[in-house]
């Protein structure tokens, strides 16, 4: 297996899928001549030309809608948002059109569009540009929400997303993960939606985490292992569909669960998992399920305050200690 950055893994996924299927095209701000705001589309313009790598004006509502329309008539668009914060300008297109059309057309018109871009806080981009939108988009039936944490998952899941029919995919990348290196699969190593990955096996507590938080969870698991607490770290990888079977199986083994996510704590995927787990695995639980998310605030600009808002390894450790009753 090749070792690649998360960024290059995404680029290769698009490259290979564009080679494979001429209906696939990429559109977004700075995806062509600038090679992508985060250099994810490096080299695509040279290889596929301006018809299939399209620089869009700064008008997300417009090019998101264009992507939806293109998908409705048979193309396979990849729409890049420079960051997901800007998708709010295209929210109506995504929610009212993309997620609904297949169902509202009685299954006649598929909308196989992929919306992708970096999600979550970078460093000090303040309240309006630090959103984690996973909880928001996972709310809507008709959208599939994918959030890879490793280069391998990024490549395998993006390829699945591009080939996916009939509903649109919300593909959430990590701005702070683009430089992360890891082994990635080949051209046909697709990763199915709805299949969680166990990142670390353990017997004492299940830690569910995705995106950037997956690494906070792994670090916390390392620290807890020194105290004799073995964490099972699970990355669901797709939040819709959600691999509840894997989570229930793990919680039935460990009897305790902590969920770590970057999105805001009110509602969202974390709360959804708590709800489903407490019903599916009620008799297995030895402690209330704990959640670690961003604090319920607009993100402050100040670096020290930003750190206080985001889920940290320390907060994950505290939650694990609480559910394992090991807090000193």
């Amino acid at each position, binding site marked *: 297996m090749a070792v690649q950055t998360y960024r290059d893994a995404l680029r290769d996924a698009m490259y290979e899928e564009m080679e494979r299927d001429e209906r696939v095209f990429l559109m977004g701000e700075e995806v062509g001549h600038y090679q992508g705001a985060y250099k994810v589309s490096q080299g695509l313009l040279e290889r596929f030309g301006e018809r299939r790598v399209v620089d869009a004006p700064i008008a997300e509502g417009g090019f998101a809608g264009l992507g939806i329309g293109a998908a409705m008539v048979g193309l396979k668009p990849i729409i890049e948002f420079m960051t997901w914060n800007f998708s709010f300008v295209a929210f109506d297109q995504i929610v009212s059109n993309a997620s609904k059309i297949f169902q509202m057309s009685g299954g006649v018109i598929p909308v196989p569009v992929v919306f992708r871009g970096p999600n979550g806080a970078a460093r000090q981009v303040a309240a309006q540009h630090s959103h984690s939108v996973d909880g928001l988009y996972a709310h809507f039936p008709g959208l599939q929400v994918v959030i890879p944490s490793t280069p391998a998952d990024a490549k395998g899941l993006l390829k699945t997303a591009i080939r996916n029919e009939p509903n649109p995919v919300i593909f959430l990348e990590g701005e702070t993960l683009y430089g992360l290196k890891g082994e990635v699969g080949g051209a046909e190593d697709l990763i199915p939606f709805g299949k969680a990955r166990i990142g670390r096996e353990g017997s004492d507590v299940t830690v569910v985490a995705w995106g950037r938080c997956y690494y906070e969870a792994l670090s916390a698991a390392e620290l807890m292992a020194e105290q004799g607490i073995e964490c099972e770290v699970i990355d669901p990888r797709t939040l819709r569909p959600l691999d509840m079977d894997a989570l229930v199986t793990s919680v039935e083994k460990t009897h305790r669960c902590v969920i770590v996510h970057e999105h805001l704590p009110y509602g969202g995927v974390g709360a959804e998992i708590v709800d489903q787990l407490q019903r599916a695995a009620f*008799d297995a639980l030895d402690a209330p399920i704990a959640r670690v998310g961003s604090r319920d605030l607009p993100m402050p600009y100040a670096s020290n305050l930003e750190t206080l808002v985001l889920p940290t390894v320390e907060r994950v450790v505290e939650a694990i200690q609480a559910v394992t*009753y090991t807090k000193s």
Partner: protein
Amino acid sequence: MAKLIGLPKLSPTMDEGTLVRWTKAEGDAVDIDDLLAEVETDKATMEFRSFDKGTLLKILADEGATLAPDAPVAIIGAKGDDIDALVAKAKGGSAPAPDAKDKGTAPDEAGASTPAKPKADSKAAQGDKQAASGEDDSAADGRVLASPLVRKLARERGLDLRTVDGSGPGGRVIKRDLDSQGESQPDAPKGGASSAGAELDAAGLALPRVEKASQMRKVIARRLTESKQQVPHFYLSVDIDAEPLVRFREQLNAEAGKAGGKVSYNDLVVKAAAVALRRVPKVNASFAGDELHFHQRIDISVAVAVPDGLVTPVVRDADRLGTLEISKKIKELAEKARDKKLKPEEMQNGTFSVSNLGMFGIQNFQAVINPPEGGILAVGALRDEAVVKDGRVVPGKRMGLTLSCDHRIVDGALGAEWLSVLRGLLEAPLTMLL
């Protein structure tokens, strides 16, 4: 108008009952005589039926709660009735059963009239449920705090969580607390080998396996202690020639068999005891302080062993029943006893008891009187024995009978007279017909 529903006294000896199962849920319509819940009393699991019509507005007692009679368990009224005052009244005025009090979970007066505080933030000291009662409403109502996993394990292992100290927040029982007393599974210790994993005391000796006493066990302990402490027992034993009884039974069963029945020695003894009580009625009596009660009915309590202990269902008017009827009645009652379906009225107001351990090969034993009855007959095994008949040793059948008498009402001569009448009846069974 909503009203508080108290736990009914479902048997005269019930001084606490355990709410086994609610059969109605909050919001359900309730009609008069509808089954509300099942309650385990000292002797049986009873039906708790409604005297009221309306809607079950609130359930105040959790399943598994042990409560004194009249303790508020529910509120019934019309939909929309304001029940806050009643709930507050129930919380303030509830009378927890004695063992609930022992655990230091007195009702929380302050909490009764104010909304419950969130439990999660309770900073109560671990294991100190007294301290917790001020902050933690669920500890205050006598409920055991336990994780769902612990509740499931307790169900599987038959553990009573009230006996487990919780080390979690607010005294919550968590899995770790069960692991530390994992040996308390009922079937764990079998012989010496199992002591290997048992907890040890300070001297290095294995600690006993602790089990919570069932309602029935508590009643047995209380009533028999009362009996032995308050009733002056004396005992009279005879060994009867059971040869005629054996022949009589064979004849009887040859006929009874055609009707699909079978009469046991015990059935015959019960019948004979009943007839003997009719002939010596002063033994069919109870001492009641300033009064002596001579019973007009001859109702024989028959001791029946059940998995948890024993019960004494009553064969009414045993003197007037045929032996086959007695046989059927005892079978039916024993079956109900084992299924815990005996109703209190089927276990109360016996006038005399018969207890038989013959099937275990016991030759003779002295039974403890079941107050307020005046006596109990202990029946031993039918046995083959060499007997002297007309100066010669021949094979014979013998059966040992011991009468325990309450000396306050049955004196020695009276007991002896009754026992000799009984002996006469059993040695010449046909005379029962006289």
